[in-house]
């Protein structure tokens, strides 16, 4: 891999990371805007969760992973500890795969 690609990727990514908080300082944030900025993070996280849970590239990922995430989701909704959610999701997917369910 070329060093140019790595350095440009590093600089560009840092620029994205640094720009957000700086921009937020520059604009006047009313309570309404503040609410929408938080909501945009919620939208992004929800999109990441949905695509990571269901898709592998552009295709449906199979049963094991969504089933694991679903078990984690139910536990999280029932206010189970975070550690339990994470371990149960992984364990469900792993066990399904052991059983031959992809």
């Amino acid at each position: 891999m070329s060093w140019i690609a790595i350095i440009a990727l590093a600089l560009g990514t840092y620029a994205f990371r640094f720009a957000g908080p700086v921009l937020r300082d520059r604009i006047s944030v009313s309570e309404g805007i503040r609410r929408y900025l938080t909501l945009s993070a919620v939208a992004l996280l929800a999109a990441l969760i949905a695509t990571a849970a269901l898709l592998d590239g552009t295709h449906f990922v199979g049963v094991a992973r969504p089933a694991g995430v679903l078990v984690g989701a139910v536990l999280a909704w029932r206010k189970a500890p975070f550690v339990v959610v994470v371990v149960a999701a992984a364990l469900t997917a792993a066990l399904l795969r052991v059983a031959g369910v992809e």
Partner: protein
Amino acid sequence: MRSILRTDPIARDVTALCAAAAVVGLSFGAIASAGGVPLAQIMVMNAFVYAGGAQFLAVGLAGAGATAVAIIAAGLLLNARHLPFGLAIGNEVLGASRWGRLLGSHLMTDESVAFALAQEDPGRRRRAYWMTGIALFLTWNVSAAAGAVVGSALGDPDTLGIDAAFPAALLALTLPSLKDRPSTLVALGGAALALVSTPWLPAGLPVLVALLALVLGRRSS
């Protein structure tokens, strides 16, 4: 250490996340190394790009013979979400000092943002962000370098179900933010938009398309 883990719920949760991240890091190092990426490049990527998704994408594209321009464009598109993330958390979470902002913004990941947003008050938000950020940064750098050295002897992390652990973790961290009807609608709309647009758009863009769901966030009363 044990007593910190017992008394501090954030430290305990971050530890669980780091355990999963370590497995992904090991696998990234092993895959990159098997793809012919030198150890020095892997370590520089870990420290300075520090974005798992973009790193996997870059190594995959390089292995497929993509040009540097294509790798840069794809990686940056995937990482563009950090801009709205930063707008959402702001310097209130990073801290007031200049160094805090310079270093703190580099620690911005899906997980550190989600951990911060899951907290109620500003003090806890800042602590959760920094603890997640520092712990994940160290975990990622150490485990991915180790994976590059040890190689593919480790096998596929999917066998351990790690691929299900990450969306579940983010979900658990995002649920507390869905406290009213508009935020729930925005989350569901964003998820739906990203899923529907994924077959048609390059990686990274569907997640940004999810921002269109903000129109669902208007307060009804």
